[in-house]
């Protein structure tokens, strides 16, 4: 029984899986978002917009699961560090969770306001959050793009902080998010 409980200082496999799965999908969505907006009018552009929306909706669904998991499972405590770093880490994580939800949602609203419903994977029509409205679409375009760049900045900080802990502080911060099997688990 005790082997299935997370060891103190370890993340659950669910938390580790969600972290890296969402990280990978965000990378794909950001890259496609950047490429597709720079493409001329071609069939590939249309396809990429749809793929981008599908990946974004997937991130949104996984982010909801992740927030619920986080609220019901206490993560391992932060490793010893100065108070300001502790505060910064909490603030950044809170910001990242907020962006994981807000960025896909803003894209969904932007798409609907532009007159494009979202049909997930070509199969599942999602409800329209707003009616078509050109002025509204312009506003949400700006919101979506700004949140996108904010996420890029937050992810850079997040990754730099992880590397700082790994290479300068030489602590377990990065390693424990890479560890699949909890230490002591069977």
């Amino acid at each position: 029984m005790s082997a299935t409980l997370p060891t103190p200082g370890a993340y659950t496999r669910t938390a580790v899986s969600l972290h890296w799965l969402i990280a990978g999908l965000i990378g794909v969505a950001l890259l496609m978002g950047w490429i597709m907006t720079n493409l001329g009018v071609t069939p590939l552009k249309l396809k990429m917009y749809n793929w981008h929306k599908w990946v974004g909706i997937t991130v949104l669904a996984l982010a909801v699961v992740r927030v619920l998991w986080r609220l019901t499972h206490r993560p391992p405590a932060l490793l010893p560090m100065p108070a300001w770093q502790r505060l910064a880490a909490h603030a950044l994580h809170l910001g990242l969770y907020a962006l994981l939800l807000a960025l896909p949602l803003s894209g969904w609203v932007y798409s609907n306001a532009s007159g494009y419903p979202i049909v997930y994977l070509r199969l599942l029509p999602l409800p329209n959050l707003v009616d078509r409205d050109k002025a509204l679409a312009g506003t949400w375009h700006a919101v979506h793009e700004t949140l996108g760049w904010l996420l890029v900045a937050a992810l850079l900080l997040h990754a730099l902080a992880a590397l700082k802990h790994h290479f300068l502080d030489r602590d377990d911060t990065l390693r424990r998010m890479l560890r699949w099997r909890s230490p002591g688990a069977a």
Partner: protein
Amino acid sequence: MFKSFMLAGAALGIMAVALAADSALDPAQSTMVATFKQENVPVDAPFRKFSGRINYDAANAAAASASIDVETGSFDIGDAAYNAEVRKPAWFDSGKFPLASFRSTAIKPLSATRFAATGTLTIKGKVLTITVPIDVVPAAGAAAGSTFNGTLTLSRQAYGIGDPQWNDVLDDQVSVRFHLVAHP
């Protein structure tokens, strides 16, 4: 007494429609919206400019006729880059073929408020015969317009609209929903 009053009113109404038989489309009240599907996503795009005449008499619907011209360059997807694309030669070729037009050839009444309109639909110089069911909402008075509603489904490829490289992204079938209000 009341009944005969109503009948007289109805007769007057029919006379008004008969008098107002040949009517011009009211651009402010009429709409024409195409719905195309890209990656299974339905997208509505209106034609902003069209004009025409409808000659309709409820008492003699079979003698009705319609003539409608749509400016292909007024097709509005909602984005300047896409709007510019659909005006190109591979699509509507709006420079060379500014108008898509419908000319009725036969009207078949289906009920008191419904008829099937057969006619030629010319797009991009290609002439095809189509039949479309139309619902009529008769004019409420002499000054009011009659309303004609219907949806027609057509094939892009039959009219040579669209570069074939788009075919796996964009459905061939496009529906056009119209709500036409014609005034005397």
